[in-house]
């Protein structure tokens, strides 16, 4: 119990610092929302007087002092009000995040879990078969790992969406057929179909890391005395591999998935941008480009909270599966 209480205090302090930084950082960017919006509109010509008047009234520089804005921000946070987006006016930040979050969690979450399972299983196998032909395959996966996301995404798009139009180029569902999100089999099919290329991108670029880490841990675990004992006892190979080897070798990877699930929400920003996928990462880029304070704060807050929550859960789980962590904390 003391373990949990201590962690909670540390997390509370982290949260306060993170939220304050969320507030401060966007305001250190040069420019203000009104200027940027006008600059954007004027690239297209035709800014009507009425629109200028609206910009002046709605998005001009706030008059309140920074300190006052900070207090207001906390007040709003406690009421669950994240403010209104400038960039996507008149949508509220909560509704924007609400509609982007499921896409990020759905796609990136599923892809990360898949990647984890595939990577761990292959790593276990590769570690088990150490010193055989399998070792020659391992370096190729690290090569995949080193490829940048956006590059993999663009290559996939080029071959499977442009040259051969097998998969869609953009979007989370077929926006040519469906007027809005809906609950139907056809829509679900469309979502899955649109998710395939982005998911493959994530798996290709992240599976190597899991695989290599797992394989190396597996190799060192297999050298432990208790494994030798198990072999001496004449246990079945499969039992030794899974129960004696893999279970212990997985510990560092479990700590890793906690952190990486946290980053799921930040949505592999680049991947979402390349595929025009309607997730949190893309929302964040749009917010930063438009100096949209409320939106940036909201998105950063969600990311911060998710990472903290994921790390907290990992801490708890880790305490459960590895008694040493509880003792030393």
């Amino acid at each position, binding site marked *: 119990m003391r373990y949990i209480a201590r962690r909670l205090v540390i997390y509370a302090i982290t949260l306060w610092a993170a939220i304050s930084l969320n507030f401060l950082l966007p305001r250190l960017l040069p420019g203000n929302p009104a200027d940027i919006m006008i600059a954007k509109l004027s690239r297209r010509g*035709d800014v009507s007087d009425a629109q200028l008047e609206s910009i002046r009234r709605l998005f001009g520089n706030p008059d309140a002092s920074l300190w006052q804005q900070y207090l207001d921000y906390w007040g709003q946070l406690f009421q669950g009000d994240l403010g209104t987006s400038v960039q996507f006016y008149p949508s509220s930040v909560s509704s924007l995040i609400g509609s982007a979050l499921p896409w990020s969690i759905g796609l990136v979450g599923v892809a990360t879990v898949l990647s984890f399972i595939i990577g761990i299983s292959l790593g276990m196998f590769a570690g088990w078969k150490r010193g055989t032909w399998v070792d020659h395959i391992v370096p190729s996966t690290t090569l995949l790992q080193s490829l940048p996301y956006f590059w993999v995404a663009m290559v996939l798009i080029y071959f499977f969406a442009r040259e051969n139009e097998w998969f869609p180029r953009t979007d989370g569902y077929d926006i040519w057929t469906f007027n809005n999100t809906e609950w139907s089999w056809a829509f679900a099919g469309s979502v899955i179909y649109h998710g395939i290329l982005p998911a493959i991108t994530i798996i290709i670029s992240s599976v190597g890391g899991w695989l290599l880490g797992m394989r190396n841990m597996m190799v060192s675990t297999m050298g432990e005395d208790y494994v030798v004992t198990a072999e001496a006892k004449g246990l079945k190979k499969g039992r030794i591999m899974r129960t004696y080897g893999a279970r212990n070798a997985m510990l560092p990877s479990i700590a890793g998935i906690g952190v990486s699930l946290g980053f799921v929400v930040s949505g592999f920003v680049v991947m979402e941008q390349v595929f025009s996928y309607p997730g949190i990462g893309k929302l964040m880029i749009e917010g930063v480009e438009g100096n949209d304070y409320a939106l940036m704060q909201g998105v950063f807050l969600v990311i911060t909270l998710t990472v903290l929550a994921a790390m907290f859960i990992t801490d708890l789980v880790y305490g459960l599966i590895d008694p040493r962590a509880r003792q030393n904390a």
Partner: protein
Amino acid sequence: MIRTMGRKRVVAAASMVAGLSLLVAGCSNGDGEETDSTNSPDSSAAAEGAKTDRELVVWAGATKPINQTFNPFSPQVQHVALGGIYQTLYYYNKAGSGDPMSLLGESFEWNDDGTELTITIREGVTWNDGEPFTTDDVIYSFTNDIAGPAYISGAEAPDDTTVVLSFDEPQYTNEFSLLGSTYMVPAHIWEDLEEDPIEWGNLEPVGTGPYTVNSISDEALTVVANPDYWGGEANVTNVRYVGVDDNAAAQDLLMSGKIDWVGMFIPQPDPVTDLGIGYINTPQDPTVMYTCSNADLGCEGDQTDVAVRQALNLAIDRTEIKDKAFVGLTGDVSPTFALLGRDDKWISPDVPAESPQTANIEEAQAILEEAGYTMGDDGIYEKDGDPIEMTLSSVDGWTDYNNAAKLIEEQAAAAGMTVTAATVSWNEFAEGRSAGDYELIMGGVIGTSVPDPFQIYKDWMGGDSTTPVGTPLEPGFWNFSRYDNDIVDEQIEVAAGTLDEATKMDAYAAIQEEITRDLPYIPIVINATQTFYNQTDYTGWPTEDDLYAFPPAWGAGASGVVLHSLGGTE
């Protein structure tokens, strides 16, 4: 080359503006003179098209999630609302020099001193909720808190079809703003709103235009033809506006036939047009170097010396910039900021009509030497030991501007001036120009929406449209150069107070004399404005032969006119 071809056709097309068969009825200009529609051989373009329910897919530049608003006062209004759903009294074709096209207004007339504008409205128009369009709506649209300009001192309706707007001062120059960019909204809905009209999303807009909203989501919106439209139901009954995040994706979608109409920059249009996709380029907006020119208002740097600006203007090789940075797609620019081809009549004979297209290094150096600069050992001119050094910023990622800046760096060095090309973020660009904290910036000037350069003189060079360095410009002020010249200000007043062309021309001549010498903005080229359209399934697009409206899908007002003129090919 593009320019010379365009010039002839723009003139020809202008006379055909009236030819839009459905809209021509009752179209008249300010003097009440009936427009002759018989000289429009190609006027049948709109009528040729057949009714079609094939869905026309448009990208008007919206990124996802798209802004859920059809509020015409909102800066993020969906493009289709301006022209497709809400209409103005007249449509001013910025691509041609003809008379404005009658929409909700049947005729208008100024009184002799420009303080009264009498408008006759179209009869028999209904809002898409069935209510009739009346003079109350017009008066509300001109006098509400948001759109109503402060200079309107009175608005009355002497009878059921006439509205008289009165002003304290002559407002001839606001004709476009009043008739061409004030959208008519229904008083019976907007007057009784419970919330602030600016903040209202207006998701079920009640307008008079050819389309009504069917659905909207974060990714796309659909509109359907308004069966009771006063100009007749549009031939293309279903239109979908999609959100796309970047040009690369949009180009792929265009080439695979998923998008039918888009206005965006594609540096290599050939692979697209080879697929049979229609293409038109209508350069409109000048690309210039903003110079923070006015030391009196706090500008710093060598560009505050007019001799340096003049030398830079001469040192630039615009042909090279056009070919290398803008892949030859831009138009040639006039130092008077009149759009060549469209506004030729306003260019004074005493100033050069075109900016020099090739570098003239000797003349540039002569100007510097006359101003007291001497060539230093390193080949750079200096005065009192202080060499000419300026930073030219451009927004990172606007590759055409970045490349142009690099070329200018080389060309200026050849003439003996150090210009350092630097890239900045979008935010720094927006803040820098607004606060005057810059030396040189590659930037754009908004081309005028009517065939007259006045708006650029007033908004971009008028002393009333600027603030000292350090004070950000108000929204609606565009004088980033901090230019402040009494003669220009005086002549802007003169031009604003008259409809007489000769008086106006004299005023413009005086202004042009000043600005071509002072060069608060150093003109580079006229930006390309490219439009791509599906000509296989649809007909009636604006073409170089029949440029009845500004073609890109994002054109405010224009897109409604174009949509209503389209039809299916079968």
